[in-house]
């Protein structure tokens, strides 16, 4: 997983509440065997018409938002299914940070597990950032995770909260697995004890 330190980039405004995982990536794209390649289908029904042509009015079909790395939305972002295709699609498109008043639980966990930073800020501040984002072109927004601030194009700094454990993982590019592997000695000794105390537990070998 890539570390997340500071990110300066284009932010796309998506002034919608209850954006569910089916909107982020419709269920018909779930039979894939890869986690990459889903970016072209991100927001598929909002982004393309029935013939597969781009809807010019949708934000991610416009310059400079085609290159957005930050997404700003309204309440309850990511509600719906637990499948991880939603964060995979965002990441594959290039989104590393989503800012919204709140997020659905499982989606919130899944973003962290995939190296995306979800930031919860009040609706009022989200709307201010949304206005910044609408300036387009040079209106770049900076997200500084170490300092826990967002820097607006006018230089104003907006602080945000984040779970210290999750912050540590993101800053160091540790996924949960990398983090758990730091406990490998403890797992080793647990397994040694297991072989001893639960010798009855069968190992699986199939011919």
């Amino acid at each position: 997983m890539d570390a997340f330190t500071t990110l300066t980039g284009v932010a796309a405004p998506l002034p919608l509440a209850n954006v569910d995982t089916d909107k982020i990536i419709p269920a018909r794209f779930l039979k894939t065997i890869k986690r990459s390649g889903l970016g072209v289908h991100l927001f598929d029904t909002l982004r393309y018409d029935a013939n597969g042509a781009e809807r010019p009015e949708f934000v991610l079909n416009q310059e400079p938002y085609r290159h957005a790395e930050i997404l700003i939305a309204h309440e309850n972002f990511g509600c719906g299914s637990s499948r991880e295709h939603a964060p995979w699609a965002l990441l594959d498109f290039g989104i590393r940070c989503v800012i919204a008043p709140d997020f659905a639980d499982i989606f919130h966990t899944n973003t962290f597990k995939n190296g995306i930073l979800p930031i919860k800020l009040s609706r009022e501040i989200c709307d201010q950032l949304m206005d910044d984002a609408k300036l387009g072109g040079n209106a770049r927004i900076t997200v500084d995770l170490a300092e826990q601030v967002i820097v607006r194009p006018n230089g104003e700094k907006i602080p945000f909260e984040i779970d210290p454990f999750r912050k540590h993982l993101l800053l160091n590019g540790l996924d949960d697995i990398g983090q758990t592997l730091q406990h490998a000695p403890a797992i080793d000794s647990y397994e040694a004890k297991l072989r001893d105390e639960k010798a009855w537990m069968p190992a699986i070998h199939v011919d």
Partner: protein
Amino acid sequence: MARTLFDKVWDAHVVERLQDGTCVLYIDRHLVHEVTSPQAFEGLRMAGRKLRRPDAHIAVVDHNIPTSDRSLGIAEEESRIQVETLETNVAAFGVPYFGLNDARQGIVHIIGPEQGLSLPGMTIVCGDSHTSTHGAMGSLAFGIGTSEVEHVMATQTLLQKPAKNMLVDVRGALPPGCTGKDLVLAIIGQIGTAGGTGHVIEYAGEAIRALDMAGRMTVCNMSIEAGARAGMIAPDETTFEYVRGKPFAPKGEALEQAIAYWRTLPSDAGAVYDKVVVVDATKIAPMVTWGTNPEAVLPITAVVPNPADEADEAKRVQLQRMVDYMALTPGQKLTDLKIDVVFIGSCTNGRIEDIRAAATVAKGRKVAAGVRALVVPGSGIVKQQAEVEGLDRILLDAGFEWREPGCSMCLGMNPDKLTPGQRSASTSNRNFEGRQGPGGRTHLVSPAMAAAAAVTGHLADVREIV
């Protein structure tokens, strides 16, 4: 301090407790299938990681495969690719695997207990919510997402916080004609689809003790439909008897050691639960779902409810939507509902006991005209056993289809699907809109009730037939 069954299994698997209460939890057994594993293997590959303990995993194909003759391979391309991908992955990472042509192939939650791979006191996970089935063994078994699948493969652990304890105490004995399926449907009807949220349910009481392992698995299977993280039943003599002689189960001295340990697992007297629900088994009748979630369930003797009777506006709208989707008329007798398709199978009711129950009703009768009735054994072993007992002949003679093992019509992901508007009596676990195919209308029932629907052509009270 007095501990519950869940507390004991949890405590025995904590490798390390982190500051915020998150635990590094050791996982004894991981079950792998073709749908939720490809991206996990891809993740391992991208990070250059291996499986920490290949001998703790077992892979099988079930969701996507056809249940007709499979000697010609899988016709549907995306399904074939998922199966082939699993085969490449298990070979590359050294994962034990029951392939499509192995007699031991079957639904992941059927083969675990059947092979002696799921045992009491274990932690068992799988990228599938119905992993709760294995809790019937007295294990802690729950479904996980794809990132967690990868996490278990790489570390043999998960990062988890403990769930809360909930006791479902089932008093009295089930009346004749009622099974584990009727019991669990009644429980979900009583506590609701969110009744178990945040909890691990322990099922206890006279009616649970009296269930055989198949019935217990049916009950635990549907814990997830009550929103619970997992369901568990304390191991007892019934459990030990079931385990004895299973292919991968410990034998001889090792088994005696294991049983001695398993006897320490039941909840201590005085253990405290965060939530307790008492269910009166004697009041239960054969159950059938009428709506589009498992909570919308009634005894077969009931009539379709009238949404107008519901005071709460949001609920009224939801009930009305269910009545409309299911094409019902309030006040209509459930036994008047004509059935197009009967599906007997799935990880809820695809075991040999379920097929025996269906065959008992089918024997000497005929599937009603215009009804398509499928019987899909949960595994190759179940299929073999049924054929040894001659159950396939009874069912075929009655006009049922006798198919190859797999998830089949439990979910619309393989060729066995309802077509729009078709009404089914199904022994599976989910009656959501479109679950068995777009526009399909599902009524969840026990295997005997499903067979009764097949031979009468409508939802029927099995007690009036046999």
